């Protein structure tokens, strides 16, 4: 299945583009997607994940179809579907 | 051997925050007063910010007119002997950079002695105490790098290597 990933804030620079379509096996979860993306770039992995791995850094935000992962029932274990939109951003605030 | 070091920042990297002035004033005087900081930031127009401090000239113009020889070139620094300074201000007139001036309370000259206290307080890392050789080297590398992309493109686009 194909999902759309949008990179905001500092991830735009790390990945070098604003968005892309990612091909994943059916039944992949949100975390599977993040792992797939991290495989491609050490810099991306380092910025997104805690050094121990497993969890994303607390100041990073990932949203699925506009809902931040913390608010999904399954959180990062949520299964993705064809056409889903995932946002990856540093959680900047202030206005 | 002279290893000439200068305290400087690229005017396009310095952000004009004046944290270096704060650090210097606090380090030397214990309080904040920009007129007592030995490094002074000039903000000019929309894009230029320049911290200016004594460049420790090899042939210091400030020393020439000094009637009491309070300014002496020693190794790589221009050393100010405060106890000899009479506060006449001739050095201020001679320095082309405005890097030496009169302390508002003491009435004698003050200038940067490259103690390095300010370096830790630059948010952008623009402020450096570097040898002039390092500055020149960086400029040479920058220049060469502008050629890298152009030349690589040319190499890749040429059909026959024998053409070179």
């Amino acid at each position, binding site marked *: 299945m194909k999902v759309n990933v*949008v990179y905001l804030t500092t991830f735009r620079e790390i990945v070098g583009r604003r968005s892309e379509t990612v091909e994943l096996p059916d039944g992949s979860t949100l975390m599977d997607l993040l792992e797939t993306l991290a495989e491609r770039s050490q810099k991306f992995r380092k910025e997104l994940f805690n050094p121990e791995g497993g969890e994303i850094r607390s100041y990073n935000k990932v949203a699925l179809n506009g809902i*931040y992962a913390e608010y999904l029932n399954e959180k990062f274990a949520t299964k993705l579907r064809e056409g889903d939109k995932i*946002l990856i951003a*540093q959680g*900047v605030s202030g206005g | 051997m002279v290893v000439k070091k200068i305290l400087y920042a690229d005017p396009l990297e310095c952000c004009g925050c004046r944290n270096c002035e704060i*650090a210097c004033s606090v380090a030397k005087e214990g309080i904040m*007063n920009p007129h007592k900081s030995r490094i002074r930031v000039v903000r000019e127009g*929309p894009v230029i910010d320049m911290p200016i401090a004594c460049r420790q000239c090899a042939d210091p113009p400030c020393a020439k007119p000094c009637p009491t020889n309070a300014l002496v070139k020693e190794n790589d620094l221009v050393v100010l002997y405060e106890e000899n300074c009479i506060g006449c201000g001739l050095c201020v007139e001679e320095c082309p950079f405005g890097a030496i001036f009169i302390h508002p309370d003491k009435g004698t000259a003050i200038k940067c002695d490259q103690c390095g206290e300010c370096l830790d307080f630059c*948010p952008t890392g623009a402020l450096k105490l570097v040898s002039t050789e390092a500055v020149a080297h960086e400029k040479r590398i920058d220049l060469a790098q502008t050629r890298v992309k152009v030349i690589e493109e040319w190499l890749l686009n040429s059909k026959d290597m024998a053409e070179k």
Partner: protein
Amino acid sequence: MDLGREKTVSQPLSSDMAKKFLGGNGFVTKILWDEVKPGLDPFDPENRLIFAIGPLSGTGWPQAGRFEVGAKSPLTGIYGDASCCGHWASELKFAGYDAIVFQGRASKPVYLWVDDDKVELKDAKDVWGKTTSETEKILREQHGKDVQVASCGPAGENLVRFAGILHQRRAAARSGIGAVMGSKKLKAVAVHGSKDVALADPEGFYKFSREIIELYKRDKFIESRAKYGTPILVELMNEIARWPVKNFQTGYTPHAKEIGGERIREEYRIKDRASFGCWARCEKPLMVKQGPYRRIYAKQPEYESLSALGARNWIHNLDVIIYANELCDEYGMDTISTGGTISWAIECYEKGIITKEDTGGLILSWGNTETLIELINKIAKREGFGNLLAEGSLRASKKIGKGSEKYVMHVKGMEIAAQDGRAQKSMGLAHATSSRGADHLKAFPLLDEVVMNEYIVARYGREYLPEMANRLDIKHKPFEVKDGEELCALCDSLLLCKSAGTSLPLFTGAVYYPEMAKAVKLATGMNIDASGMRTIGERIVNLQRAFNIREGISRKDDTLPSRFTEEPAPEGPPKGHVVELEQLLDEYYKLRGWDKETGLIPRKKLEALDLKDVADSLEAMGKLPR
């Protein structure tokens, strides 16, 4: 400074004032309460214009480079203030002052020249009529290049009701304080100082400030502000449909990426610039490399300006927004109220309420960049249709009538900033309760802007999750707003940057009440503990409210436009949501200790905050709750 009689009086700051109000907006609030009678026309010479700084200004404490300006607002008729960064606040401290209070009106245009102990009113004939940056340039040529200048622009001179005060292209923009300055025929305040910034315990103070600097060095928000500034919020807020589009008709535009911080950094940014003692360096001079607007610009538009002059009017041309932003700065006008008033006019035109006859032949339409520029020019000069718009959207709608009032996106007469309350309920409440009219900065509820679970737990406790972090859930939002108002009032009295310095006070709590108390003690010797600092914040909030109550404000004015309370959000995550304002207000008043029905403050609350005289005064007017 009595401008009418051309007399200055320099007096030492009373320790009572310092202890109870600290500085900044604390001083502004107290002086406005004491000296501005209720019902006074804000353009009356008896209005006060107050410039104030705080105990940390000029010391080198990180992120403490701001100054505050306040007056009774000609836009709203209530409490008005705005703050601004740069290098003016520190210079005023070097000159040895904590505040300058202007009263009266000069007989001809003047500016104030402050050079340490020398304070002189000077003829402003060379600068009256000039733009804000020209004014700065001329005064610096006259008095010295290290002189710091704050000035109003032609918009302030022309009494545009949302004119602001500019310094080095940073703006104290809101509440129309620039118009008060213009009404006093005061063009600028130029300051030069050479004194030591005396501290009670300089060694202890600088040791502590360096510890805090180390925290800022490693802070992720500072890193983001340094890279992008506030424009990084554009795409983030658009994704949660909180980004005002077409006068808040909706909260999302597919074109946000054209005007977002990522694009600006990649294609326009030259470098970073900073205020005095600042570590965030969020200011960005830009270059527009091609097209009719090609040149170097001193400043990137902030998030708010990208909204107000951009998507709020369906404009996604970044070059035009950069130019329009500069125009507003040079004229000295608040971009939020400017863009907000224009977008109201465009919606009314779209719906046939305003016609070409009203506009003098101008066609108003979404996305029309020529009209945007033309209107900015006309508003600043009060020409033609611009003369009506210069009154602000609420007054303009009252003149037009015909149901145009429905589309005014305001609270208490001030245009709402770039937060759609339906997409973040805490912002909706913050707008409704803000003491200067619609404004997010008085409460600045950010913990639910981008899901800050760990900070909520650390600050308040696990029991506030998950609802406090959920921006669409009203639970715990009155508490978040109430608590935020006090913290922000304190930050504004110490003049700590809430935007770039955001994270340390507002999120991690690394600079919170205990640290602020310690900093103030080391700086001034004043012994106020953490809970005492919180009380000062609460006192300022209540005194601002009392000032507004005296001007006739009550619950009926703590409103939101019906678009937010009755029209469900049309798309995105907040789809279907409205702001449940009445419920939010009920709980907010309860937490504040204010009367639920009227929104007035009981005597008991005022006396607990050492404001007995205020209670007496309100009682005499019949303005205490029964």
